[in-house]
């Protein structure tokens, strides 16, 4: 607890630099990564992260300096070449995109490793620390590093704000962007450039291999919660920043723990949690929704059975379990689920061991039957399907039709009296 307070007070300037640095990098990578995710370029991001290594090594060999701007220019150039190569190989040869990505990724990385190890073994002065690009160097970030990354992050943010609308169209509907006269090539160039820039500063905090996570995992997390691009971006940035904070806290509290992998662990945890438990889009919510739908369909089917029984012999009102099951087979659990649900909604009234429809239940049953018969009518009249082909389709659609569609069907068919099988279509009581 003391450790946490000590950490959060940010007394130690070193801790302050590292923490703000990782938060910063996490947020800018997440913001730009949202577009990479939406354009389904996650793995291209991974490849570019690996491919900037030779650029860094060559920049160092040429200028013998570790100035972040020099190294970053090298990174930018080789990242760009890699991106173009992937695009070209998957378009101009018979190689599939994933093969092109894997090929460029591993070959560029191999070249980078060869150059880096060669530099290290040659014993050139001040080469120490180049391998921080491999594993990230969050823990040893200095103030001048922070300044440099801050400037780049600011440029990225500016570009995103400036071209927000254009990037949005480009991500969701590139064909439309082309057709509406946007300078697609130029926009793609800008978007790719800021992606490569974000990657080349991002690997400072998590290293080459884990960079893909910093780029896309926040976006995947955010996607589960919202449909709006702006909200998604903000959420992704929060997830990226939060993970940066957690990662640097863990390596502060346990100094032999690496920052980068913990950032990725935290990100992945957020992503998995969102994928499973987010309302509406999460796995759990979807399963629950499916169960609800199944129950609704079951109980509507049981209601219909009541209606059909009454239709066949108008004199009787109450029906036994056996009569119902004879009309339409349900399994025991299905029958009990449907019955329970209908009772709770006061659609059914128990009478001894038998059941009868309540007033409300009768109207509801009429509604379902009406939709079924209306749809059958529509299929024969408008789609010109034969009367003996339409029942299964109507069985499914009757549970889905909304009041608005019902209204439209009625108008379209001019309030028909009977369905194609000559059964009357029941209308609600006036």
């Amino acid at each position: 607890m003391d450790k946490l307070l000590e950490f959060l007070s940010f007394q130690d300037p070193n801790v302050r630099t590292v923490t703000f640095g990782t938060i910063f990098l996490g947020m800018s990578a997440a913001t730009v990564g949202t577009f990479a995710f939406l354009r389904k370029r996650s793995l291209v991001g991974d490849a570019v992260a690996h491919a900037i290594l030779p650029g860094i090594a060559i920049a160092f060999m040429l200028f013998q300096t570790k100035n972040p701007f020099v190294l970053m220019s090298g990174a930018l150039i080789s990242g760009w070449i890699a991106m173009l190569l992937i695009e070209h190989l998957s378009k101009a040869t018979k190689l599939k995109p994933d093969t092109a990505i894997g090929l460029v990724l591993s070959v560029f990385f191999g070249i980078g490793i060869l150059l880096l190890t060669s530099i290290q073994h040659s014993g050139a002065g001040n080469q120490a620390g180049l391998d921080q690009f491999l594993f990230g160097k969050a823990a040893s970030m200095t103030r001048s590093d922070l300044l440099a990354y801050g400037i780049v992050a600011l440029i990225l943010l500016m570009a995103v704000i400036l071209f927000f609308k254009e990037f949005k169209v480009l991500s969701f509907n590139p064909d439309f962007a082309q057709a509406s006269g946007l300078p697609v090539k130029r926009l793609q160039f800008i978007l790719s450039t800021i992606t490569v820039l974000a990657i080349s500063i991002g690997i400072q905090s998590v290293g080459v291999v884990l960079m893909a996570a910093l780029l896309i995992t926040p976006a995947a997390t955010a996607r589960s919660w919202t449909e709006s691009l702006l909200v998604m971006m903000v959420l992704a940035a929060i997830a990226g920043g939060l993970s940066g904070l957690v990662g640097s806290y863990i390596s502060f509290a346990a100094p032999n723990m690496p920052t980068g992998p913990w950032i990725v662990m935290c990100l992945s945890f957020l992503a998995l949690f969102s994928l499973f438990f987010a309302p509406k889009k999460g796995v759990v919510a979807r399963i629950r929704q499916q169960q609800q739908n199944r129950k609704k369909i079951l109980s509507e089917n049981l209601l219909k059975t009541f209606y059909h029984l009454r239709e066949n012999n108008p004199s009787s009102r109450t029906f036994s379990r056996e009569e119902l099951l004879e009309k339409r087979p349900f399994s025991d659990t299905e029958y009990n689920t449907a019955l329970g649900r209908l009772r709770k909604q006061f659609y059914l009234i128990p009478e001894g061991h038998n059941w009868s429809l309540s007033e409300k239940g009768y109207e509801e049953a009429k509604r379902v039957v009406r939709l079924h018969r209306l749809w059958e009518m529509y299929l024969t009249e408008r789609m010109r399907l034969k009367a003996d082909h339409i029942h299964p389709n109507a069985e499914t659609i009757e549970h889905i039709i909304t009041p608005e569609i019902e209204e439209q069907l009625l108008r379209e068919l001019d309030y028909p009296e009977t369905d194609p099988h000559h059964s009357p279509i029941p209308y609600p009581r006036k």
Partner: protein
Amino acid sequence: MEALYIILTAFCIALSCGTLGTFLILRKMAMVGDAISHSVLPGIVIAFLVSGSRNNIPMLIGAAAVGVLTTVLIELLHKKARLQEDASIGITFTWLFALGVILISAFTGQVDLDQECVLYGEIAYVPLDLIITHSGTNLGPRPLWVSGAMALIVLLVTRIGYKGFFITTFNPDYAKALGISTVIWHFVFMSLVSLTTVVSFESVGAILVVALLIAPPATAYLLTGRLKTMLLYTAILSLLISVCGYVLATWLNGSIAGAMATVAGILFAGAYGVYKVKAGKGTKAPLKKPAY
């Protein structure tokens, strides 16, 4: 002698990787191979902690199981959680790799692995890890035996299961219609890929495994459209890569694994040139036709 050991080990690894990689790229699963090569790391570390040694068979199989698990996880995220496929791959392998690095840091001293080794291997140390019998006879380096055995297994399984691999790769629907289980072949194949990755891991590291899995088959694929020829070309390329890679590394005094990936890239560039020249001829021919 040392050079020969290194080159032979590299060749055995390249041969197993190339053979499997051929099917991998034809099945459009190149990036799944990339993911597996990263995500076996926690498997290796845990197996190492449990068994306390490297290179015993249960450890290899345990670690390879994590590789197969990766493919299941990717599938699960993609199908059940409806995450797009590229993101499922990206999230799964980065997560497992991060877990592996954390485990290494948590148990430093107990695990004979470090981060550099994970990324680009230590094939230069192959000649140091010798098997010496009780009577004192030197049987040669252990990694050479292990990777040699692996290459043999891979070649044997592809030879025996050639028809199965062939049909499930090119026409899975037809395979299903014939009653051939694509799922079983998929798992046999994925287990082989995982096992190869684990065996190759400490010699050449995660990234070179990917280079050897993808680059030689991709090169061969540009040169031919026939599976058998492709496998043959891949084998020849593997030999070239091991020899030239070693020479290049000695010349530049750099990482052997890195040099091999570089050579793989150069060979690909060459094949690309040939491919373009051929394609160029193909497109020019119709232009001359209007003469008659």
